[in-house]
């Protein structure tokens, strides 16, 4: 075994760089893990001492995030994106092939500590998958050829930083542009316009625009900003939610790649409106590779006087932005969980009220907006609220970026005015023989072909941007099962219905998939769905049954053909229970099985 010790001077360095602040715990853990890939027990103890917090707290935080490891992992950590679209492109076969080439078991580091191969929730590359994270860096367009190359590079112990550049090339795949993606923003232009308007008039333009949150919930942005502006407390905060974890969504990745200035300018526009001095961008760990370019954009904006003190010469307008990294936890996209995570804690959603606009980051009034929402405010500053509201529908003004993946000729980013019909989108992306579309990701809505006349808008089909296309060859039960597995994996475990219910739902779906389902299982599934919907603490739990409820309603035969014609079949499988005994005795003959229909042919 290699030595994994992280020296106390290394710990002190990192802790000091973060000003010994306990609310930097998550950022500190991410940095400390960097050299060896995991966090040995002694490191957690030393870190707790250095920060003056309990070790149990540090262990609790480290254990929460998928990308933090408290047990040894391979020096090469290869994580396949577990998105259903990538399954359909063969990601599981590629993962099995890689495991067999490297002689490793999935989800377990190799004996020599060289490599571990596992899965991770959707990494936001659904338009160019199958994809994996290799020591945190996305490797795209995996094929058997590429898998062979990776196996060879690992065996020869070539550092990931020296792998061929083509592996890491991320395409933007923008196929349809409207106001947002046509924007050629001269840095500072939108800000200049808003400053010229004055604070009150800028807020009025925001109201006129009727801009609603693009993260999915659709809350009116101006209402949020005004509530924060009016909240008592001088030290207000603007947070950009770049924790784009919804399976099938990748439009924020493209915005951060192509329009980073607009995103940061939007944050600054929000700061001007509410009177904030501090800005935080919470970047999901999967997008960590974007950080250096984002930092460069921030540096450029600082030297151009667009961040820092007296922005654009305006006395009293001081604002700066800092990037915080996530570490693999979908629930942190929920705004109060995100605030907990920004404070260096476990990403457990808070009790609301109070809402973040009055008590947010470190108890201060905080605006939390999605990447796309903030970028859109630049359009409003440049062209006015009325011009912005002229496109879209009455309740959904402006445009929406869709992340299209799955069974279509041209997956990628499409920008449409709100109100576009599903069938129009399908036509544009080159989808034919479409059986169903999942709009809004795992938490969204599954639409059947008889609903393709429906429109993308908050008043009809709301979405954060995912648009996953499934043709008639796809098994929609497997789609729902993948989403259920996702929610069970990502549940924070705070409340009973979500912690237990998502796992019970997965068990029930697995039982059906194994061919042991009975009618009573469908009743159980519907009952668990209802508990999740009604009793969950946050949106993750209440959205978790959506894919199952939709598919049961619209594609029930996909479930029924998996049932045995029984009223009841036990969840406990006697033959499976004998597997350990069979392994121990080295037998697999008919007499070693519970009944003849289980025996190998």
């Amino acid at each position, binding site marked *: 075994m290699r030595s994994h010790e992280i020296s106390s001077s290394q710990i002190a360095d990192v802790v000091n760089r973060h000003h010994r602040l306990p609310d930097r715990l998550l950022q500190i853990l991410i940095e400390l893990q960097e050299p060896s890939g995991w966090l040995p027990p*002694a490191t957690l103890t030393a870190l707790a001492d250095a920060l003056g917090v309990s070790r149990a707290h540090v262990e*609790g935080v480290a254990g929460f995030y998928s990308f933090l490891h408290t047990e040894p992992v391979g020096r090469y950590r290869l994580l396949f994106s577990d998105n259903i679209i990538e399954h359909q492109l063969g990601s599981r076969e590629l993962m099995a092939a890689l495991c067999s080439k490297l002689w490793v078991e999935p989800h377990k580091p190799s004996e020599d500590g060289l490599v571990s191969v596992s899965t991770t929730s959707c990494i936001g590359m659904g338009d160019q998958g199958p994809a994996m994270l290799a020591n945190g860096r996305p490797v795209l367009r995996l094929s058997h050829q590429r898998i062979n190359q990776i196996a060879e590079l690992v065996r020869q112990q070539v550092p990931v930083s020296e792998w061929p550049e083509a592996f890491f090339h991320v395409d933007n795949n923008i196929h349809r542009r409207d106001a947002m993606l046509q924007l050629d923003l001269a840095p500072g232009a939108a800000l200049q316009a808003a400053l010229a308007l004055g604070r009150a008039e800028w807020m009025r333009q925001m109201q006129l625009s009727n801009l609603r949150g693009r993260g999915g919930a659709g809350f009116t942005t101006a209402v949020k900003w005004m509530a924060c502006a009016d909240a008592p407390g001088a030290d207000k905060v603007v947070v950009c939610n770049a924790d784009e974890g919804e399976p099938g969504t990748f439009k924020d990745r493209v915005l951060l790649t192509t329009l980073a200035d607009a995103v940061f300018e939007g944050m600054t526009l929000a700061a001007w409106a509410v009177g904030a001095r501090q800005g935080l961008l919470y970047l999901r760990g999967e997008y960590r590779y974007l950080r250096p370019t984002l930092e460069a954009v921030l540096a450029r904006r600082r030297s151009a006087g667009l961040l820092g003190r007296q922005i654009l010469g305006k006395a009293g307008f001081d604002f700066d932005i800092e990037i915080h990294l996530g570490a693999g936890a979908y629930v942190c996209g929920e705004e109060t969980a995100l605030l907990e995570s920004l404070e260096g804690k476990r990403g457990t959603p808070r009790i609301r009220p109070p809402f973040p606009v009055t008590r947010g980051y470190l108890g201060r009034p905080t605006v939390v907006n999605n990447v796309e929402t903030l970028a859109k405010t630049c359009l409003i500053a440049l062209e006015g609220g009325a011009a912005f509201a002229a496109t879209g529908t009455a309740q959904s003004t402006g445009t929406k970026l869709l992340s299209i993946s799955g069974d279509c000729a041209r997956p990628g980013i499409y920008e449409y005015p709100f109100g576009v019909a599903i069938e129009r989108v399908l036509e544009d992306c080159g989808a034919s023989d479409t059986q169903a579309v999942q709009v809004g990701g795992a938490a969204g809505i599954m639409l059947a072909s008889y609903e393709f006349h429906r429109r993308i808008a908050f008043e009809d089909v709301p979405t954060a941007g995912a648009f996953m296309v499934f043709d008639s060859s796809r098994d929609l039960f497997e789609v729902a099962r993948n989403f259920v597995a996702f929610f069970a994996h990502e549940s924070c*475990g705070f409340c*009973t219905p979500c*912690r237990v219910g998502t796992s019970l739902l997965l068990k029930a779906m697995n039982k059906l998939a194994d061919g042991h389902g009975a009618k009573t299982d469908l009743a159980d599934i519907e009952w668990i769905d209802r*508990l999740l919907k009604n009793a969950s*603490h946050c949106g993750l739990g209440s959205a978790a049954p959506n894919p199952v409820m939709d598919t049961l309603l619209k594609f029930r035969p996909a479930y029924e053909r998996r049932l045995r014609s029984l009223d009841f079949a036990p969840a406990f499988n006697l033959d499976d229970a004998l597997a350990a005994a069979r392994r121990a005795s080295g037998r697999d003959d008919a007499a070693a099985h519970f009944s003849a229909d289980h025996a190998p042919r």
Partner: protein
Amino acid sequence: MSKQFLFDGRPVPFEDGQTILQAARAAGHYIPHLCWHPDFPPHGSCKLCIVKVGGRHVSSCAMPAKEGMEVESNTPEINGERRALLQMLFVEGNHFCPSCEKSGNCQLQALAYDLEMVGERFAHFFPDRPVDASHPDVLLDFNRCIFCELCVRASRDVDGKQVFALTERGIHKYLVVNAESGRLGDTDFAASDRAADICPVGVILHKRVGFARPIGSRTYDIQPIHEVDMKERT
């Protein structure tokens, strides 16, 4: 004239700042709860205290009471959901009441009787959870943990020690203690801590007193939990 809301059709007075559960309880109406404790701020994780307000489910322990609210609590629908939440807690851990020394003093067990839970319905998880007997005075049996975090909160907010925390997430979440060895005996935990007497189930147990009072004559053996809870109001 004080403000009031309707609780199962009956008027309940409240003061600003009171939650539905607090006001209802003060007025003599019991709402089932496990993670809520009168000495601590609301936590809202067990969800046993769900009620329906204007057709929406809310946690009554955390939801501020408002003038004119119509709250449904003791209805077949809500009690059915509460029973299912209890069933989830039972199948998630390893709960064997007949061999548990907390039997009769356990709130999970008492609520299951109160809400007439006659079986578990769901498939058991049978998790592999250890027992920690390293401390001279206190035993930890993690098999029964329901993640109410009362010990976490009591140790942190009352004892000033932070002996407990939760780690991992989802169904894999578990309770840890403040020691690199993972053993309670290596922490500064004491049997006199508030956290030692806060567990609503049978995780934190004082040694050598397990059967001082025989099963059958314990708190909830004598009186159902909804009566005990009303009696305990101050």
